[in-house]
């Protein structure tokens, strides 16, 4: 006996159901864009009324930040921009080689139980709250720096950069490791069959093959370092100062917002200025992401 024929026509309910699901999924996708834009818009609108009143050249380049001065209010964020960039840059100088090296080690050179243990520990490192990092920076790291390095008394750029490096390394490692894991095993086998050693396989085949993923890992690390607030607020010294050495205290954009927003009157110029600083942070991360995107595309075209 033949099985009953499959019905070709579908009920109106199932058709509508499918359409509804399609719309829900679409909404989920679009919501990310909506959130980013509305946050940007909110920050912009809070800061916007102050924009025409400012001397922008002075704002961006001057290190004079006197938002509460009675006679001569000056909103120069130059020192903070340099502070943010220098502490991030220095942190990446430590974190990128270390993080990528660790990713290569975890993914290619260690096996079995050691690998599992390392991955768990590294993930735990990523889960340490930033306030705890700040605390370590204040009490442990600063003490070590004062004892072993020729640093003047006080908190400094170097201390905060080390903290930021330690905070971004786990991100770089876990995403970098994923990127390396995504390289097909057939590449490894083909390279090894040609007589390549493990290290030759890594730097001639795996690193180029995982390039985009590794770049993404580094950028997420950079993003983490730029956006970090609490640890740098606690460990940089929080002095508005253009650093001239590794051991100068600095202040970052993020820490300024965190420290001062609570003390300003809503709608006052100082309050609006802090939102404009938020906008600058937005722009910095945007530029970093854009550069990364261009870099990846350039690499691809090659």
């Amino acid at each position, binding site marked *: 006996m033949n099985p009953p024929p499959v019905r070709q026509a579908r009920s109106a309910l199932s058709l509508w159901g499918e359409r509804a699901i399609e719309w829900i999924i679409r909404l989920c996708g679009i919501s990310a864009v909506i959130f980013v834009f509305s946050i940007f818009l909110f920050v912009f609108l809070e800061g916007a009324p102050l924009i025409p009143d400012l001397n922008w050249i002075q704002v961006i380049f001057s290190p004079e930040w006197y938002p509460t001065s009675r006679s001569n209010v000056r909103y120069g964020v130059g020192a903070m921009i340099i502070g943010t960039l220098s502490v991030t840059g220095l942190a990446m100088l430590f974190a990128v080689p270390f993080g990528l090296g660790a990713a290569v080690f975890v993914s290619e050179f260690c096996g079995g139980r050691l690998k599992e243990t390392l991955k768990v520990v590294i993930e735990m490192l990523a889960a340490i709250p930033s306030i705890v990092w700040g605390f370590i920076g204040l009490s442990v790291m600063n003490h070590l720096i004062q004892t072993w390095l020729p640093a003047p008394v006080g908190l400094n750029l170097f201390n905060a950069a080390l903290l930021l490096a330690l905070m971004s390394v786990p991100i770089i490692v876990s995403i970098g490791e994923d990127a390396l894991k995504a390289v097909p095993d*057939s*590449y490894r*086998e*083909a390279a090894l069959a*040609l*007589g390549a050693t493990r290290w*030759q396989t890594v730097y*001639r*085949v795996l690193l*180029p093959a995982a390039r985009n993923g590794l770049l993404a890992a580094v950028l997420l690390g950079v993003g983490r370092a730029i956006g970090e607030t609490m640890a740098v607020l606690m460990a940089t010294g929080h002095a508005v100062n253009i650093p001239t050495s590794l051991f100068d205290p600095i202040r970052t954009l993020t820490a300024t917002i965190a420290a001062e927003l609570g003390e300003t009157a809503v709608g006052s110029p100082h309050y609006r200025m802090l939102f404009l600083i938020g906008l600058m942070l937005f722009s910095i991360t945007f530029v970093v992401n854009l550069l990364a995107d261009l870099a990846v595309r350039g690499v691809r075209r090659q």
Partner: protein
Amino acid sequence: MVSPAPKIAVENLRLSYGHKEVLHGISFTVAPREILGVIGPAQSGKTSLLRCINRTVEFTPGAVMTGTVRVDGEDVMRVPDVYGLRRKIGMVAPLPVGLPLTIYDNVAFAPRCAGVTDPAELDARVERCLRQAALWEEVKDRLDTLGTKLSGGQQQRLTIARALSHDPEILCLDEFSIAIDPVTTMRIEDVLKELRAHVTILLVTNLTQQARRLADRTMFLWNGNIVEIGPTEEIFSDHPKDRRTFEYVNGIFG
């Protein structure tokens, strides 16, 4: 007559992946500068056998190999320098794996790993190997595009060029002509005949006629056992030693 020392000597080779044994203790030898054809249906252990010879089988988790495989009299499991061993052997896999590098870098990969840095020598090698793999004319103007962008058949020939790039003494070809048109296949077969002057070739093939054209001796592998190994004329004659050989070669294997 004293036969020369075998280039490859396999003795009682057993290989299992987990609980599944795929080679059940096979023994054979390959003489220097001989082409040994290996034929047999799917799942008979042909590819696994090649992977035992250059020890790439050890990358498969759970693979356990017993018995010995000797290359030039040296047990491959005990060689001091496994990279040197692998460089002695050129391997062409049935599914082409173009490394994610340019065409040039694909071919120059093994020589570079072996320490060749002179650009002129690398250039010469790349051209020679690509010519031998009958690919040079098609790619000579775009050596700096990605090897993975080539078509399937071109990638297959790229892997052949790569396998020749480090002057192997042994060439293991696993279904090299699977994605290559008959005309190009014949061109590569001609190259193999030339290479016979100084290279030992293991030719795994599903095209029994290819073994017949090229091989000095042919081995019929079935279900992880050697059914028969002998001179190619004998295997393909009307009266091979084993009836199953006759049936397989003539397409009436049931």
